[in-house]
Each structure stands twice: as structure tokens, then as C-alpha cells.
């Protein structure tokens, strides 16, 4: 069982991801935008972050850079995006070892990636250790 935060502005997708992850027995937190997600994760660190990129307020890229930098996500980050430039996103987040799933995505594929991150198995991405000095932020 992992603690997972899902940041997604589309209510249907948010609901769907929650349903799937809860079925696997994880504890899921929901956020409709980047700022809400950051506040949640700062209050209590999570194991995995599943985030959209285009969101009102703080976008996914800023959210991920912020929370990983602060060491608030322990195991890994999965990005869901319908933006054309996944390669660019992947490059920008390469240092953090982020898995990018383009939309439309398959919920079962998402589920697989979450399970492998939760089990600590190497996925297509690896989590970089957060800087020690910033661990205290969470």
C-alpha cells in the first residue's frame, strides 16, 4: 500500500485514476490544480505523484520541480499529458527520472507503472535522491 497523490484538472480522469488505484489498495489524495497538490504534499509527503501538465494555477512541471526539489515524493513521479511535446517534457524532467504517459493513456498501463514504483522495481524511470538539505521542507 502506497500513499499516492493525483493532480489532474479533468474531474472524470481524476475520478478514474482514483478508482483504479484504490482498487489496488493504495491511499489516494486528489488535487484539481498544482497549488492544491503542492500544499497537500507539503503537509504530508507521498510515495508517488501522478500529475497532469496543463493545469490552472501552478502547472505540472512547476509542481514536480518544486516537490521533488523539496524531497516530498519518496518513490516516483508519473506524468500524464496530452501535450505534443512529451520529448521536451521528458528532457526537462530527465534529471528527476520521471515516467511520461501520453494521453489518451491506458489505465492498466498506469496501474503497472504505479505497482512497479511501489514495489521499488526499476521502471523506465528512476527516482533521483532528493538533496539532503531540503528534506526538512516536508
Amino acid at each position, binding site marked *: 500500500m502506497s500513499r499516492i497523490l493525483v493532480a489532474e484538472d479533468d474531474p472524470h480522469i481524476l475520478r478514474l485514476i482514483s478508482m483504479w488505484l484504490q*482498487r489496488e489498495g493504495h491511499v489516494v489524495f486528489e488535487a484539481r490544480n498544482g497549488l492544491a497538490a503542492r500544499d497537500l504534499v507539503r503537509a504530508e509527503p507521498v510515495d508517488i505523484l501522478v500529475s497532469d501538465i496543463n493545469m490552472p494555477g501552478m502547472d505540472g512541471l512547476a509542481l514536480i520541480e518544486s516537490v521533488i526539489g523539496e524531497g516530498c515524493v519518496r518513490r516516483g513521479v508519473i506524468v500524464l499529458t496530452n501535450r505534443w511535446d512529451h520529448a521536451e517534457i521528458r528532457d526537462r524532467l530527465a534529471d528527476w527520472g520521471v515516467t511520461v504517459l501520453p*494521453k489518451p493513456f*491506458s489505465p492498466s498501463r498506469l496501474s503497472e507503472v504505479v505497482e512497479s514504483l511501489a514495489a521499488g522495481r526499476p521502471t523506465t524511470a528512476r527516482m533521483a535522491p532528493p538533496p539532503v538539505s531540503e528534506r526538512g521542507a516536508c
Partner: protein
Amino acid sequence: MWRNGLLPEALSLGFVVFAFVGLAAAYLVCDRGWRGQARSVEQSATETLARTWAALLASRGDADQAPGELLGECVRGVPYLRRVQWTAPDGSIAFEWPRPLALVVGLAERPASGTSATGPAPLVATAAVSAPGGANLGLLTVEREMPAADGRTFLLITWGAAAGFVLFAFAVFHQRLRRHLRPAAAIEHSLTSYAAGIEKELLTLTLSDSLGAAARGWNQLIEQLAAMQREQETGRAGDATGNVLARFENAVFRRVLDRLPFGVLCITPEQRVSYANGAAATLLGRSLNEMVHRPVSMAIHNPAVQQGIAGVQAGSGSGMSVDQSTGQGDQETTLRFRVLPAPAPPAGGDAVVTVEDISQLRESQRARDNFLYHVTHELRTPLTNIHAYAETLTQPGFDDEQTRKECYNVLISETRRLSRLVEDILSISQLEVGTARLDVGEVELARLVRQMVQDSLGTADEKKIDLTLSLPPKLPKIKGDKQRLSVLLNNLIGNAVKYTPENGKVHVSVELEGQRILISVRDTGIGIAPEAQPHVFEKFYRAADDAVQMLPGTGLGLALAREVARLHGGDILLESERGKGSTFTVELPNSAAAAAEVPER
């Protein structure tokens, strides 16, 4: 013929000749005057001499000393004396000097007398010798030479000084004349060299002095001449073929080239521009004079293009294309250079460069890319939902009744959203391109507006929004496309309900105002920020406001609504204050009133 170039020289020469003639005349007059005066002085001196000696002879007539001896003593040492003769009353010569015997010696002593034949006439004076008693003792004649002209030295010095001054004045005058007439001389020189074929181009003058205007005139003249020359060259090319038709065609081609909307330049193997048309001058920001017959680097600064020209002329390539952008943002201009070989037998090697402004093309490509980006982005959201929920239905863990129902509902609503989106995109594209045709019929506006309000009542009730409608007692039927007008109203009322928080108000009203029908949708919603207001009717525009971004929307509704209003000959006006609400007013022409005024035939 007036020859400007020789003007300074002619004027200077005239001045010098005039000055010297004047000086010479002055000298002659002075010399003559002086000579006359000197003669009279010498004459009176001679007369005085004669009188004195006559008196001396008379007074010493009785003395021991012979009068001849006395006179001999007197005349000794007197300058310029030529002859002294005392003639007695009986006609005999009592005394004569020089003595006839000593004449040869005297001649030797006085060489001046030898020149007397050519020199001025001798001065002669006679005086009667009278004894104190009154007795006549004879006549004394004294003859003197005119003394050498000592005084003329002064005159010569004066004359020399005057001549020197004249020369100096001439030098100054000449200098000034040249400076003032230099452009004229330069023009003369330029014309002569040009006519002789030494120079290929006429001189361009740059003057800021009083001759500036003349310089401008001159420069205009060369510009015209250069144009004529180009015209002539085309004609000459025609001559070379010895074909009247070819000459005619050349002139036609030239005119065609001159009027092409894109730039054309001809480059010779020597890397010079042999021809450029007006569009090339405009696009490259230079005048034709600054380009034609000059190195290509003066016209085109792009090294890639220059390399391309060299390559094409060397025969290594069939041409190339280079885009060059200058400026930033809205000011950005992109020029596309195309280099093509234009082999001219036998030596060959001309190159043709075309220049086009492709800024607009770039801009429309960017707009198209932007449109596609937004369209695919908007399509992916419902597609993602449909894909994910459909997959969920196939999974064993989600087979309870409630989950299945939820999945079906999402599938239905997202499919509807997808089809509406596709319809909107199609409509707006057609409306924008102008291929859409209104299906015009009679529309009962009152009924249409009432129906649209009723359709939104359900959503309004969910948010406890007070949605009201006021209609005038009698509303005419108008001519319009009922389907598209309903989309327009639905978008406006739907937006009002969507962007109005719970417990707000939305009021729809229709008014008749002369030739116009005004349909207003007023809400107490979040309002639109002033900076966003000019953009709300743009495609895919959504205000960068969290309150807007949190709500679903494509940014197509208002763009579509305005296109529909405009196609009906109307428009949509917006009044809004952030935090207080917005009013969208649709203005439509009252086609019924218009029809009443212009009765059908």
C-alpha cells in the same frame, strides 16, 4: 555652347589680360607725362645756363682773359653738354666747344653723343650777349643732351608693385572662382569622361552649399539617365540578336519584370548586379542606383546567398533557397532568397536571384500550427476519457452496478462533448474561410430565445441561478439561419450560467431599437478582466484566470457566436467588469423592418 568647365580659366585669363593692359596703359601715360615734364625742366636749365654764360661773357668782355678761355673753363664738367657756340654779330664764330680739332677726342670722352641720332632731340637754348653799355656782342647757343632717365626707376618699381599686386589678386580671385564653380567643373569632367566611355557612371554630387539645389537637380538627371541606359541596354541585347521581335520582347519582358510583386536581380559573373526590379529595391531597402552596376554585396548582405550565387555561377548546383528573418515579434520580416542559374552562352555564368517577403506565409503557417495544436489538445481530453472508461468497463474489478453506470454516463457525455467539439471546429473553420452558407429562413425570434433559455434552466437550477427572460410584446420574424442562431444564443446563455457563481442572476432580454434588434445576456458572474476583453472572441482563447481555467471550455464558443452574428449582418458587443458580471449584446438587423421599407417587387 556653354562649357562650364572652362569658365574659371576664361574668367581668370580675361581678368589678367585686362589688368595688364590697364597697367601698361598707365605706365605709358605716366612715362610720357614724366618725359614731357623732364624735358621742360632740362630745357629751362639749358636756357638758364645759356643766359648765365651770356651774362658772364658780357660782364667780362673787357677783362684780360680771353672770352674763349673763360667759356672753356665754364663748360668743363657740365653734364650732358653737347655744344656751346658763340657767334659774333658779324656772323663769325668767336668760340666753339668742343673745339673742332678735339672733336674726335671729345667723342671718345662722351660716348653718349654717339647715340644722339637715335636718342631724344637735344635741348637747345640761345641767349644774346649784350655788353653793359648795350652793345651787341653776338649770340650764345648752348646745346645739351637730354639726360638719361633716372626718374624712370621709380616708375618701374611702382609699376612692378602694381603688377605684383594684380597677380596676387588674380590668384585669390581664381581660387575663389574655382571653389564656387568646382561642381560645374566636376560635372563637366564627369560628362566628358562618361561621353568618352572612360567612366561607366556619372558622378553623384554631394553638396551642402549654395549649389546644393543644382546638385540635387543633377543627381535626378543621372537617375533618369541611368534608367534610360538600362532601357537602352535591354534594347541593345535585342540588337545583338538582330531581331526586331527579340527587341520588342525584351522591352515587354523588362516591363513585366519591373512590375513583378517579388524582387528579381541579375548577377553577372563579376558578382555585380546588372539588373534589379522595383520590388527588389523595396524589399532590400535600397534604391536601384545603390544596387545596379555595383557589387552584389551592396545589395544582398546574406553570405549564404552570396555563396549560392558563386556556386551557381561555377556550375555546381541547380539553385538554392535561403530564408532570412529580421526584427522581432510583430515586426519580424522574413525574406526568401532563391538563387537560380541563368546560363548565357558562350561564357555563361549569370545568376538570377528572386526575393520574396514570406512573412505572411510564415504567419499563416504559425496560425495553422497553433490551430492544430489547440484542436488536438481539445480532442484528446474527451478521447482520453472515452478510452479510459471503456477500458475500465472491460476490467473484472469494476463490475458493480454503480461503477458501470458511472462509466456509461461518462462515455455518453464525453462522446457528446467530442461530437460537439468536432462540430464547433468544423463550423468555425467554414465560417472563417467563408465556405459556410447560411440556411436562411424566417425565424420567430421570440420562440427561439424562449426555447434557448428553457434549455439552460436545468443547469441554472443546479447552481441556484435565477435565469430570467424579458421579451417585448410583439417581436417580428426575422430572416436568418435558425440552427446557427440557436448555437449563438446557446453559447452566450451557456457561458453566462457557467461563469456565474451559485445564487447569481442571468437575465436575457430582447429589445427593438429602430432598424436593430438587441439581444442582451446579462450575468452577475466573475466578469472579464480589461486586458482579456479584446481577446475573448479569438479562437481557443481562454482568460488566464484560475476561475476560468477551472471550468471546462474550448475557447471556441464566443468566436463561433461572433462569426454567426457577423454573417447575419450584425455583431456582438461586450461590457464587463471583473467580479461584477458581463453583458453580451447581440445586434441583429431588423430584417422585417428593412423589408417593410423596401417593398418587394
